[in-house]
């Protein structure tokens, strides 16, 4: 393994342990890793925006050399308008002139709302209503040639009734007694099953993150030993040794303080 690769993978392993140390309690190792990731991300993102967005999408277009307008050598001079709106945003930093920034914000919000509202309604309300209702009366679900079609037909009925019952649970203009109590109980069960499914998936997601870190740590350990570069291995063992000493110190402190009353 190359020295640089070994260095970076080791740093990754070290930062992984720094982050996991928070599970025990907040500590300087975790804080270091946390601040590092926030700082590096912010710096990286700023450069990405500059090189991937502003240069190709604005400056290059304002300097294509076909036409001359307002000292800008460009045939696409209208790109000056969003550029000016972008500059106006920066007036937020002046108490006197911050009102200017409301114009680009208003324009952006207006465009975004105009774009989003009809599309969101269509994709996330109308289409969902359509599938929830038509799934029930779609005869092919029941008279199809496979078991899966029949299963999806039964699922459509459950989804349809479950949606109505779950909505009814939040209908407070009528007291939930008698039949209405039954419907709202069915609704809460449907909601709980939904939350359960979400929770199950979330657990799987969180475990996946941990599994990936175990794989990374395992790769690092294997590579460190197999590389045969003993001096580097020893150096990083020293780094991890500090970590271990701290952890042991904390464990001893925990058992010594056990039973004593906390400071008021």
């Amino acid at each position: 393994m190359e020295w640089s690769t070994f260095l970076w993978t080791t740093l990754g392993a070290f930062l992984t342990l720094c982050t996991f140390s928070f599970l025990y309690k907040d500590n300087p190792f975790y804080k270091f890793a946390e601040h590092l990731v926030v700082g590096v991300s912010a710096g990286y993102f700023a450069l990405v925006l500059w090189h991937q967005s502003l240069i190709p999408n604005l400056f290059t277009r304002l300097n294509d050399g076909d036409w001359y307008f307002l000292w800008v050598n460009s045939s696409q001079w209208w790109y000056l308008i969003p550029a000016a709106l972008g500059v106006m945003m920066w007036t937020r930093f002046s108490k006197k002139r911050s009102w200017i920034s409301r114009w680009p914000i208003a324009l952006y919000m207006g465009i975004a709302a105009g774009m989003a509202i009809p599309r969101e309604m269509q994709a996330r309300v109308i289409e969902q209503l359509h599938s929830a209702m038509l799934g029930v009366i779609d005869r092919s679900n029941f008279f199809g040639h496979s078991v899966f079609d029949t299963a999806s037909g039964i699922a459509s009925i459950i989804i349809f009734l479950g949606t109505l019952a779950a909505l009814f649970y939040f209908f407070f203009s009528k007291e939930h007694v008698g039949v209405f109590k039954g419907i709202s109980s069915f609704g809460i069960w449907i909601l709980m099953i939904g939350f359960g499914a979400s929770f199950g998936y979330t657990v799987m997601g969180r475990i996946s993150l941990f599994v990936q870190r175990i794989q990374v740590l395992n790769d690092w350990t294997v590579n460190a030993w197999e590389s045969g570069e003993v001096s580097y291995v020893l150096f990083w063992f020293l780094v991890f040794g500090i970590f271990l000493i701290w952890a042991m110190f904390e464990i001893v402190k925990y058992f010594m303080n056990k039973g004593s009353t906390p400071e008021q």
Partner: protein
Amino acid sequence: MNIFDRLISLDRRWVFLALAVVCVITYLWDFKVPVNLSHEVQSIFDKVNALEEGDIIYMSVDYDPNALAELHPTTYALAELCFRKKIRVIFGTLSNLGQGMVDQVIRDISDSVKNDATYNGVFYQGREIVNGVDYVFLGYKPYPAMVIQAMGLDFRVPFPTDYYGTPLDNIPIMRGTKNFDQCKLVVDMAAGNVAEMWITYGHGNYGVPLALAVTGVMGADMYPYLGSGQVFGLAAGLLGAAQIEMLCDNPGRAMDGMRIQLFAHILIILFIVMGNIGFLATRNKNKMR
């Protein structure tokens, strides 16, 4: 303090420690667990596998390093399948740290495709994949909804150049490729609300055939879109990634992680049962008082 009181007041750090021990032991213990296939994942593989040589697909890698555990395996498996079958791929990212993800995928898969391999009984001879011919990486642009809308009109509006600064008209794969109309399908690997933007604007505005690979946390929220036909396939979390790897006959980190998932889930279920037993026992004791 009896055992039930101890169960209720158990320090959560013991739970973390138990979980860590179980995960590490299971990782070191090499065995296989069966992975059941689901229709929603099978349909992604079937659609991609049915594409012919020279077809173009758009792969949107919309996740950061914090989600690579669940989404990288899917990206790797599908990208390799495409390159092996000589399907051309347009990569893009709407996630600000996604560029590193795409760059890593391209480099690793380029190395992998150089070797001969047999997947699902089909022999693929190793070959060199060429930037601009076999794939193009458009790079990153902010504001996903607007970028998707703009790409639906013309890729050149949001992306005048590719990630490496080459104008799109000078790239062979992009000659004659104006917008989504020339792409057979879009596969979005997403961690966050970008997936819903692809549904709303990509499928909603332009009717692109869309498949999603999402993180486990998003999985349950995406199923309604599968039911309504707005997406034709869905691979959720590490399980979805493991199924993709299995279908591609290309086992990787997702299938490797499933055995750990199994025991971690069993342990969590045990903790939930223990917690509930403790809760019910102490509640009954308090009632009797």
